[in-house]
């Protein structure tokens, strides 16, 4: 028996919007600690990890660990039917092959039930070790989204380099080049406008902008984004979900190939 009641239903809607373009089908894992998901895109280049801790729900009941395979597009279709102020309750019975989403309007005068078929998904679960990152950049999420959008109109890849000067995003395309530097800035009125750079070692990595742009769909979930970089690891782009958990995107870097020796 599983029953999760989320007062802030819009949060689940936003989570779906953030991941449904990246992943088609995924297993949602429920345990006593929370509601989580880990899934890769079809080309195994990007991974999304979601955690919504049990404390964040108004009511959380999960008798035993279960995993529910869902088609995210279908789930998104159903959640779109919920109002932004609705309370969403997720229910599943043991042994059932469906999940029920219940939407209650804030005034309790309208209650909708949506039942969705579950799927058997044979998916790979990757172990992600805790790592010390060479550089961690915290910046306003809207700013990051803007940078990714702007750069993708010029090139396909972004080089993110962190130095003492700040964090630099650069790209190169047929029409020319672009460089955007963001400096550390903590002297702002609101903490969510700050840019904070922690650097142990300078680092520079190349990523496909297509994926970065897809990650920024999570911008409505959090005003800040954290980008963690290490030279031999995938980048982590993390959006905190207030008092509940996080949504983290991992992206494998582009690798410099050694067969370019034909170039002068």
């Amino acid at each position, binding site marked *: 028996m599983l029953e999760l009641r989320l007062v802030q239903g819009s949060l689940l809607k936003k989570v779906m919007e953030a991941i449904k373009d990246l992943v088609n089908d995924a297993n949602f894992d429920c345990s006593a600690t929370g509601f989580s998901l880990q899934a890769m895109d079809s080309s195994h*280049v990007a991974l999304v990890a979601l955690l919504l801790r049990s404390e964040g729900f108004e009511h959380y009941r999960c008798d035993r660990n*279960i995993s529910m395979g869902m088609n995210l597009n279908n789930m998104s279709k159903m959640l779109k039917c919920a109002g932004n102020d609705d309370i969403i309750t997720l229910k599943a019975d043991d042994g059932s092959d469906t999940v029920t989403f219940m939407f209650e309007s804030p005034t309790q005068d309208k209650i909708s039930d949506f039942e969705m078929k579950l799927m058997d998904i044979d998916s790979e679960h*990757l172990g992600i070790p805790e790592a010390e990152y060479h550089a961690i950049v915290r910046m306003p999420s809207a700013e990051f989204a803007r940078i990714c959008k702007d750069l993708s109109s010029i090139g396909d890849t972004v080089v993110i380099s962190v130095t003492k000067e700040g964090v630099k995003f650069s790209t190169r395309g047929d029409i020319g080049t672009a460089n955007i530097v963001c400096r550390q800035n903590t002297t702002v009125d609101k903490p969510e406008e700050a840019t904070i750079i922690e650097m142990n070692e300078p680092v520079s990595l190349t990523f496909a902008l297509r994926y970065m742009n897809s990650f920024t769909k999570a911008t409505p979930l959090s005003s800040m984004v954290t980008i963690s970089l290490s030279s031999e690891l995938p980048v982590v782009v993390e959006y905190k979900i207030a008092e509940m958990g996080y949504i983290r995107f991992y992206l494998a870097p582009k690798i410099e190939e050694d067969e370019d020796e034909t170039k002068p």
Partner: protein
Amino acid sequence: MGIKGLTKLLADNAPKAMKEQKFESYFGRKIAIDASMSIYQFLIVVGRSGTEMLTNEAGEVTSHLQGMFTRTIRLLEAGIKPVYVFDGKPPDLKKQELAKRYLKRADASEDLAEAVETGNKEDIEKYSKRTVKVTKQHNEDCKRLLRLMGVPVIEAPSEAEAECAELCKSGKVYAVASEDMDSLTFGAPRFLRHLMDPSSRKVPVMEFEVAKILEELSLTMDQFIDLCILSGCDYCDSIRGIGGQTALKLIRQHGSIENILENINKERYHIPDDWSYQEARRLFKEPVVYNDKEQLEINWTAPDVEGLITFLVNENGFNSDRVAKAIEKIKAAKNKSSQGRLESFFKPVANSSAPVKRKETPENDAKEATDKKAKAKAGGGKKRK
């Protein structure tokens, strides 16, 4: 071709060894492709209507070039790194099979002539497909095309499937792609079907793992080879009246062809005279392949733009705009192939939570977890029943 009825036998008896995968999930993987099989398919399918085929000005068929060019670009665009392996000298044992095929083609040619006379369109199509033969020239054309595209080509000392399997065993490639189930008998650890199918058919790639097959059938590799020989392979006759199912039963019961021969009812099943199963077995177990010491160069290089234009446009009458566009695609894909995969950083682990529907004892649960770990692969899911 290949092993008779093996796909069905596996689907019935080892369903867990077969998995549908998305084409895209082979991103960044090196894959050995049995070229002869692909060329044969292209000659049958690409640009055919009745007896008409794509040709250049001199009237030479170019279907194989068209097919090889577009499908290879599709692979490159998906970030796959193909290595094409061409057949070398066929083993002596296969000559009988080849002679049979030659006769069949001759029959088909006669039927075709008859069909053309009577003007039966369906028959013309059917028989003209059967007359298709991959010639040395076709192979040479494709090799030249691939080299110009910057795609590595390997000429196998003997059977291409055997060489593909060897490349996969030695870890030089991730998987083998062919339509010929022989690859499994040669022991290719990971074997893909339908990789080269046109995107329009929307057929998912079918992935087979030999280790899984052996586990599911509870056979050793030697027994599996015997099973394939009994089911019917290219290298020797099989016993009349014994198909895949019976073969599997017999192998499970007796363990090897020798023991089967001792115990089988010879009245009921007629064993072929001078049955050369031992030679066939040896061919599967110790095929003629390049050994590790012989350095195989497998490199993906930039395409030779001028060479491609000369070859395709000037010599074979391809549309120059299309070729130019295609070359752009190859170049763009070259760029893309530098994208890393997440698995090179994070390793798969077993997932602890059980699916909502399954109720199992703890013992089974533990098994489930190890199973998951073993097969741990992302892929399309299927609707629960």
